[in-house]
């Protein structure tokens, strides 16, 4: 059904996704990125550390959402186990730290390599399946990773482990909240630029082609499996980076970040923002975390309105917040 829809506005589909979108979308994304940069700085200037940390959280999770968007939004691979990569990235910081290796130049590459390796192994098996089987097998692998880390008694087991000192970058001191925010922001910008370049490259066109019609891509002579697997591994590595940042932000690492409900939340952030648009996941993550923050301040039962919002957004909002703005502008 969606393939037909896509064929109907083929011109729009083939048009390369611009970095900042078109029309109102362009203005909105620039405004959003500027706000996401300026507001935390103002909060820091006013001495409000809470909002600075909150913004850092949005930025870190946005990296995870952007990485998921690469395969879910553009590649059409509905990964229901992306939280596993966040967790692996986090443990890649925690475990070396536990043994006294605190260099960020070890932690961050390790996080990305470990996540990429996990993505390579699980992706190689998962990508043999389609549709709901893919959703479920990615979830199964994430559950395996969850139980694996849960059983590591030496690294905290189900109590989680505290990160006594943050990763050491040498010249950068990320214990400072502002420095941490700026680093995360820079990494987010880098990831977005990377995704933008990927989806517009020849490689990205093939991956997007597999999403709309895999049989056709195959008959054009592409090894679609290899292309999708590569995209899956890139996405996993990027998400591992997000995990390494999250571990440093929270100074605490727990296997709970890998449960399937977390994967569901990540998926929701991507969909809420508008899957398949470069900046969409940032909208989604921002709106999601703001909602969580505001609602949980009012009531401990904040999951209730949150669930209602989730259902309503699935039933009535197509293309997420980003698409909503685009349509409001067009009419």
């Amino acid at each position, binding site marked *: 059904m969606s393939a037909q829809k896509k064929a109907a506005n083929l011109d729009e589909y083939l048009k390369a996704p611009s970095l900042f979108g078109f029309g109102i979308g362009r203005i909105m994304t620039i405004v959003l990125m500027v706000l996401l940069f300026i507001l935390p700085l103002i909060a820091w200037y006013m001495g409000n550390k809470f909002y600075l940390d909150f913004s850092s959280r949005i930025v870190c999770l946005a990296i995870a959402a952007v990485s998921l968007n690469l395969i879910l939004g553009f590649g059409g691979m509905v990964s229901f186990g992306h939280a596993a990569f966040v967790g692996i990235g986090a443990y890649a910081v925690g475990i070396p730290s536990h043994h006294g290796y605190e260099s960020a130049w070890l932690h961050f590459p390790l996080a990305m390599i470990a996540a990429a390796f996990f993505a390579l192994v699980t992706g190689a098996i998962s990508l043999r399946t389609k549709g709901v089987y893919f959703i479920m097998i990615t979830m199964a692998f994430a559950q395996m990773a969850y139980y694996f880390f849960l059983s590591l008694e030496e690294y905290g087991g189900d109590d989680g482990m505290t990160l006594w000192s943050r990763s050491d970058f040498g010249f950068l001191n990320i214990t400072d909240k502002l420095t941490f925010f700026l680093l995360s922001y820079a990494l987010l910008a880098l990831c977005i630029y990377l995704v933008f370049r990927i989806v517009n490259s020849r490689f990205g066109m093939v991956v997007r082609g597999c999403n709309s019609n895999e049989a056709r891509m195959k008959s054009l002579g592409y090894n679609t499996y290899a292309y999708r697997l590569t995209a899956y591994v890139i996405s996993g590595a990027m998400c591992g980076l997000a995990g390494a940042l999250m571990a440093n932000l929270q100074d605490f690492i727990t296997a709970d970040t890998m449960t399937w409900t977390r994967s569901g939340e990540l998926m*929701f952030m991507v969909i809420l923002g508008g899957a398949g648009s470069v900046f969409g996941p940032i909208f989604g993550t921002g709106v999601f975390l703001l909602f969580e923050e505001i609602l949980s301040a009012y009531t401990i039962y904040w999951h209730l309105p949150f669930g209602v919002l989730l259902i309503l957004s699935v039933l009535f909002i197509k293309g997420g917040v980003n698409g909503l703005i685009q349509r409001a502008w067009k009419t």
Partner: protein
Amino acid sequence: MSTLFLIQLLNGLQLGVLLFLLAAGLTLVFGIMDFVNLAHGSLYMLGAFVCASLTFFTGSFVWGVVFAIPIIAIIGYLFEVLIVRHLYESNHLDHVLATFGIILIADTLVQLSWGPEGIAIPLPDYLSGQVEILPDIIFPTFRLLIISSGLLIAAGLYWLITYTRLGMLIRAGASNRTMVSALGIDISTLFAGVFALGAVLAGVAGMLIAPITEATIGMGNDIIITAFVVIIVGGIGSMKGAFIAAILIGIIDTLGRSFLKDILEIFNESASAETAGPALSSMLIYIIMAIVLALRPQGLFPPKVR
């Protein structure tokens, strides 16, 4: 050893039977309506809580179950009419997200109505005892009841699907939905009915387990994932597959949890078996699922026509 093994085998059978009750509803809904229902576990939880309240109200667990069943059927029916029905046309991703939202709502509503604590359901005396089924093998009566009623329900479902007109419609709907509606069958009523049936099966599973584990919030969220493993291993849409896979997964999971550590220690006497055992046994069913999907992506017993 052999006594323990037999008892664990029975415990595994009991888990398998419960998993079948959940998986049967899931696989019906999935096979016929192509709908991924993560919130199936919420019906399991609601079954347990409604039954708990009714048990205290009527003073008897049996009456609690009898009155809870129609209530769960109505909840399932409303659920289908209000939300699920509008999602059949969307893709699986939307199903996952919307039903994820329903889980959040159901968990919170249960917390609002019954409070955050779990509720223990008292059993009548004649059910809370133990029986000696074989010499030296003593097993709780209630667990035997779970196994036998589960098998009975499985037999009933088999009869319903193979020999009745409704079952014929269900099978026809699973293989070609459009043709069934073209032949003048009110497909939306059929769907709502099937959904309510699935809800009742899940609810009954919740009612049966609640006296053992208590009714707790989020109790459905763990078992629903296992139930998904079951229907994927068995082949989505296949009732036979769901039954065999449920019993298999139930027994493997239970035996893995009790004996895997000992088996590992035979091969490896170091302390690593101490930690690897529990980890491996929790992962066992997911490993099985990954192997099945890698070798036979359509599951062990896929339905014939799709």
